[in-house]
């Protein structure tokens, strides 16, 4: 999906290496009401580059700061858990970015580690695209409509 440069829809950063899964997530989102601007990067390093505005993600008009990030765990280069760890150790407001794990692992160890490293939610990839649509529909309703979001852009804050 090409980034929406108008920012009328909430921007969600998806870190997902499997392009089939990405397509399924897109299709499932398409079946649910409410639009979002889903931007996908393929690995953990790119997620970090995106969030820090490092080239090729240095144009914030094309690559805006997201309001939330959806992370797989098993990723090339830098795993989802490592991205989380990096994110929560930042000293800029980006450290507040809400992070949702979406993964095929229901390994208790992974679940525990994700929350230890500051995940805000942990979701299992369902078996069918229908269930995925239901899940993402609920996500949109609760996460994007009901939740209050922190400021994640701007100058460094001392407390962060």
């Amino acid at each position, binding site marked *: 999906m090409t980034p929406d440069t108008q920012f009328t829809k909430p921007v969600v950063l998806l870190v997902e290496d499997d392009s*089939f899964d990405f397509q399924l997530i897109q299709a499932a989102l398409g079946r649910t009401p409410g639009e979002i601007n889903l931007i996908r990067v393929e690995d953990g390093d790119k997620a970090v580059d995106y969030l820090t505005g490092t080239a090729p993600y240095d144009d914030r008009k094309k690559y805006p700061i997201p309001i939330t990030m959806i992370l797989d765990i098993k990723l090339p280069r830098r795993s989802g858990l490592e991205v989380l760890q990096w994110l929560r150790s930042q000293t800029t407001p980006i450290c507040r970015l809400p992070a949702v794990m979406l993964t095929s692992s229901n390994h208790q160890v992974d679940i525990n580690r994700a929350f230890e490293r500051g995940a805000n939610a942990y979701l299992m990839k369902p078996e069918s*695209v229908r269930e995925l649509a239901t899940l993402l529909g609920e996500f949109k309703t609760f996460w994007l409509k009901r939740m209050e979001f922190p400021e994640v852009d701007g100058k460094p804050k001392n407390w962060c």
Partner: protein
Amino acid sequence: MVPANARSKEGISVKNSSTELDLLQSEGVFRLMVERIRDYAIFMLSPEGIIASWNEGAERLKLYKGEEIIGKHFSIFYPEADLASGKPAMELRVAAEVGRFEDEGWRIRKDGTRFWANVIITAIRDHDGKLIGFGKVTRDMTDRREAERRYRLLIEGVTDYAIYSLDKNGIISSWNSGAERIKQYSAEEIIGKHFSQFYTREDAEGGMPAKVLETARNTGHYEGEGWRVRKDGSKFWSSVVVTPLRDDAGEIIGYSKITRDITDRLKLLERIQQHADELEHRVTEREQANAELEAFSYSVSHDLRGPLRAIEGFSDIILTDFGSQLPPPAVELLKNIVRSSIRMNRLVQDLLDYSRLNRIEIRSSTVNIAAAMKDACEQLQEGLRDKVTVTVPATLNVSAHQGTLTQVLFNLIINGLKFYPPGHPPHVEVTAHRGAKSVVIEVQDKGIGIAKQHQERIFQVFERLHSNDAYSGTGIGLAIVKRGITRMGGRVWVESEPGKGSTFFISLPAA
């Protein structure tokens, strides 16, 4: 000397002296005292050995009266062999030469019986040094000798322990049969040798023997284990106790040493240790294998299910978005793809569950059956929940693993609901009751039932009695039931009649 028959019958009573001290110092009183001593035979001999006096002790010991023995030669007390070797004369000669002779040996009483005597003969000379006779003191040592003999026999007869004594320098002075058996030396060849020859060369050169005696001397006791060498050069592992022997004055006169051959025990310990090491090694291997399996299952669950999700998902998208443009047979084929991928997904999940059941540590605790049933029913699809009737006492508990019991019950319910003939609404009834030590849970259906010859097979992995078209399933559900229950220390069995339905029974320890 005063004849023995001059003794006073009323004890020592002399009334002529002025003071008691004078009295006691008088020769007459001294003579009376000697006469009245009962525990020692004390008598005088002439230079030639003729008995010249006799006391009560002598009479008591040798049974002769004074009047019948005085004037006889003292050789009358000696056994034949001593007389033949001229021992009595020899004793007097030695006493005359060195002033004193001490001996222990057999002597003969008047009635011919023997007693073991300790004899001291002292030469008596006048002021000019002329030999005027001998004083002889004899003590009956028969009892002590007997006790010592028995004690010696006892020690000598012990074969399980080497018991031997050393003099204060470590020279071997006694040797029992156990010592001979264990160390292979006979008493004749080892008595008089130093005990350090039992040690290995390294120990002997390292001063071990001296250290052992030093420890025994300083602490009153030495105890240790170590290698010792037999006569033939072979080694044995010994347990040793050394105790110092002291005389009445407390001076060390030697050591007693007790040695046991505990090589067998050592070998046994080594074998036990070997087994323990081996076991530990196997446990480590197994833990590694388990960790690898865990990692394998993890990647199976992650990697294998990804493509399955894609197959199912894309087929579903085609059906939804383009279904109206497809000919009906193509729609059917796509639906088959969706069903197959869903089935395979379930298969992977079931296999993972089953292999997890084999590996995970199952810790039992008190589990409420009604609560586990509620969890199991919540996992059922919505449409199936009202097809299960649960009649379980609210307070009934078992010793089990909560998650595993729930998994087992879920699988049994799914199994029970599945095998109904087409057109018959499925129904499962769950009941539970407490026995003496266990709780039995029954899951009953009124389905197609299982023939007798298949009732064992159904609990094995991938065992299926029906085609997938007739009754879909992975063939793992009941294997999970069996494995889960077995790992929780319980039993599972089935009673069934074709056409009438099946009842699955689980028995678990009551809690």
